């Protein structure tokens, strides 16, 4: 596993944190204590001699996918499968750098004014039914995704920034963008479906969804990628197999079985019994594994930073008397004991964060100073803001209004209840009353989108380009975007605009750095921490790397995995 400075630092902290508490830190560490061992990321010999080319790998899915149709996909699990069956033309690498998919694209060119992009496909590409994969398929898919009659959920976002998509010849596609922007090319990664399969059904069912024809198509997805679909048993498993006619690089693993295991307890047991080769671990499981011999015999652990952040959002749109005032929001952050929360939820595996970018990110601004946990300072700040402790009952009041608010939590959130419990106690100690309300997801989202809340705990995943913060932080995204807390700073609005339409790396970096500083100073959220990918892999697996997005959604991802030929394994015996 390649690590940069920050990750190494974290790892040292992590080993120090779990080592002494659970087992002796020395040579007699139990085997389960291994984190990111060198064997896990080892690359195979160039001649492929030691590779077991017939290996089956058992992966875990935390839920049954709704659909395996590449254009209708919306959940993480669906992405894991789609990237093996029908990989996109443009991808991210494990450091979250944009690149074209080398197996699919021969050349990529952008016009000087950055308004058009031309992709030349590799000539020998084929669908799994042996029909040629052509530029027409790309054009058809783009049309289908943007077709008003097709009820697509997620795939339209971004794809709708492509104004025109034209096939110049069977192997060349030209894309036209409305406005030249540094992020336009990221939108070329939309899913591609087979025109010769979809078009015949389209006449009877323009929705591409509500007919038995498309039900069949979506349950038996056909792609053009390195793996082909074998079977899908609902809530049990999905099986893929290496497609040997793939013209690109041949993956080492022959069969991939995705086992659907939503319950973390039973998944861990399956891992220990060798019935799973990988699974995400909860922090408790990750920490507990260091003393678990059965775990140590079967698996190793992997740890990687993740580009996302957990936050407490303060609704500052004026609908409540508390959080309009930046001083109040700063006081809230000072009261949030992030180190303790991290200890309780994450067993000290992660570190508090500095705002909207991960320290590994190219736009990260090192000059941001973190607001530290300090309840006395918080009390003083609240006094300054006019929220004074009443002699009568000890709570804080301003203009006769008691400082009492409700924190909205989503059911099933890993961090939410603990964050709330710890914050509640600390707020109490400075005379602020916090209630909590836990809502089931759909209800929670409806309240958040309607700006009908005081405070909430949430998490955002970061897209590699910082432009993805556009619809969270710009003032005009209050009604239509994700600016649920009603944040508004004209300078931030302006910087997002300038950075989006610039192609000067240094200029963009300065813009986004300033945005991070401004937002952190305004404290619209209490930024808590970046989560980490905590994973378990069976001992026989090699070539595994994690990206800031975790196990999937980057190139080469699973294509690098391999199993040594001499690895004794109960699966293959």
């Amino acid at each position: 596993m390649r690590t940069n400075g920050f990750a190494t630092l974290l790892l040292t902290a992590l080993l120090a944190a779990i080592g002494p508490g659970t087992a002796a830190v020395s040579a007699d560490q139990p085997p389960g204590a291994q984190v990111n061992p060198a064997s896990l990321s080892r690359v195979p010999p160039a001649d492929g001699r030691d590779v077991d080319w017939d290996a089956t790998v058992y992966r875990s899915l935390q839920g049954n996918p709704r659909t395996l149709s590449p254009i209708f996909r919306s959940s993480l699990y669906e992405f894991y499968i789609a990237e093996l069956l029908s990989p996109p033309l443009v991808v991210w690498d494990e450091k979250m750098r944009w690149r074209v998919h080398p197996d699919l694209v021969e050349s990529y060119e952008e016009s000087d004014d950055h308004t058009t992009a031309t992709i030349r496909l590799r000539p020998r590409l084929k669908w799994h039914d042996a029909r040629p994969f052509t530029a027409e398929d790309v054009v058809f898919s783009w049309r289908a995704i943007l077709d008003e009659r097709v009820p697509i959920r997620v795939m339209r976002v971004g794809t709708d920034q492509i104004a025109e998509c034209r096939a110049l010849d069977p192997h060349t596609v030209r894309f036209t963008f409305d406005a030249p922007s540094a992020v336009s090319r990221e939108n070329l990664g939309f899913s591609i479906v087979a025109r010769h399969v979809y078009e015949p059904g389209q006449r009877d069912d323009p929705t591409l969804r509500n007919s038995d024809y498309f039900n069949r198509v979506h349950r038996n997805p056909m792609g053009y990628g390195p793996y082909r679909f074998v079977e899908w048993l609902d809530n049990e498993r999905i099986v893929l197999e290496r497609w040997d006619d793939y013209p690109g690089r041949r993956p080492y693993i022959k069969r991939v079985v995705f086992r659907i295991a939503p319950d973390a307890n039973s998944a861990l047991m399956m891992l220990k019994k060798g019935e799973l080769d990988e699974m995400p671990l909860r922090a408790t499981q990750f920490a507990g594994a260091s003393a678990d011999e059965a775990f140590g015999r079967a698996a190793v652990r992997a740890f990687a930073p993740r580009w996302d952040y957990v936050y407490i959002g303060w609704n500052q749109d004026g609908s409540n008397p508390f959080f309009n005032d930046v001083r109040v929001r700063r006081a809230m952050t000072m009261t949030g004991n992030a180190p303790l929360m991290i200890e309780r939820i994450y067993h000290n595996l992660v570190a508090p964060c500095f705002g909207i970018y991960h320290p590994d990110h190219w736009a990260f601004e090192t000059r941001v100073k973190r607001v530290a946990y300090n309840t006395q300072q918080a009390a003083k700040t609240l006094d300054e803001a006019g929220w004074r402790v009443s002699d009568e009952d000890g709570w804080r009041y301003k203009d006769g209004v008691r400082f009492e608010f409700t924190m909205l939590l989503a059911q099933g959130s890993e961090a939410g209840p603990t964050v709330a419990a710890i914050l509640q106690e600390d707020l109490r100690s400075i005379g602020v009353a916090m209630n909590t309300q836990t809502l089931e997801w759909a209800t929670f989202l409806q309240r958040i989108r309607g700006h009908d809340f005081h405070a909430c705990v949430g998490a955002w995943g970061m897209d590699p380009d910082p432009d993805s913060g556009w619809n969270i932080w710009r003032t005009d995204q209050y009604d239509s975007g994700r600016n649920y807390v009603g944040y508004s700073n004209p300078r931030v609005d302006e910087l997002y605009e300038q950075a989006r339409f610039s192609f000067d790396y240094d200029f963009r970096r300065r813009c986004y750095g300033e945005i991070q500083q401004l937002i952190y100073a305004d404290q619209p959220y209490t930024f808590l921490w970046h989560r980490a990918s905590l994973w378990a892999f069976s001992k026989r697996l090699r070539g595994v790397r994690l990206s800031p997005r975790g196990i999937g959604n980057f190139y080469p991802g699973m294509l690098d995995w391999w199993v040594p030929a001499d690895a004794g394994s109960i699966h293959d015996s």
Partner: protein
Amino acid sequence: MIDATPTTPHFSERGIRSRFRRDVRAMVGLIGVCLLVLIGVCGPLLANRQPILCRYDGSWHLPAIVDVIHKLPFSARVVSKSRPFRYPQFDAKRDLPADAFALWPPIRYGPRETSASILEGPTGSHLLGTDDVGRDVAARLIHATSASIGAGLGAMLLAALIGIPLGGLAGYRGGKTDILVSRLIELFTCFPVFFLILAVMAWLGPGTGIAGLAVVIGLVRWTAVARYTRGEFLHLRAEDYVLAARTQGAGLARILFVHLLPNAMGPVLVALAFGVANVILIEAGLSWLGFGVQQPDPSWGNMLRTGYAHLEAAPHLIFASCAAIFLAVLSCNLTADGLRNALSPKLR
């Protein structure tokens, strides 16, 4: 419910009482129920971060007792804790002088106090260990009692308020009324309860976890009470005293509640007692699925849920809540069964 035995009302009250007293199982159940109610009411005296009685700054204080009083709605307007115990900033464990006299509850933690390390097994200071946020499991178990018992009693009260009049009317009137009520009962039997809960939880807003749950369960469970009342009234309506009351021109309400209800009360009480056990089950089940009482408020069901999430790391969480649910349900069932046997002694 184990309510298979047909009941024939037995009118000698003294006979019923003495039969009930002689029934060991019933008495055990009744003692259990009384203990649960006691724990539910006096929770703050058993587990609290403030002392029951103490001397501070030259005067005596009773903070935990005020906590008990505050369980009554609106009581906070009448009675409040003395200074400084009413201040949220005041931490009795930290701020009380070591030499001051203080009578502490057996468990010196509140149900929301995040004081210790997490997922700790049972130790001297935390008798039942701690949960995933570092809260004392024993304190939460005690304070959850009032949620479960409160939900049980509240829901059955609501169920009785809806079920007895409707069922009684159906049984007494018969005919069209009976048909309508019976269809209504069927309607409620087919309802997806989860939607009702989602809707009520979303509409009622914060702090109403237990009340909302009691309302939902009451709205669903009144059908059983109604069915019982209907059956009893159907039997009784032909009795002479009812006919007599009717010929004397007694009003409908008078006949239903003055003449019929007291005589049907026994079986209806049995239904209600079984109902309480059932509500405790339902409440814990819903909290288990994540729909009942929400964190950080404690409930046996959500403690079970937390335990299940850390099944291998901390099985002690499971055992505590399992035992509590089991004992509560058992006590209610034993009491209800004893009551029924006392009413119809034939089949002991």
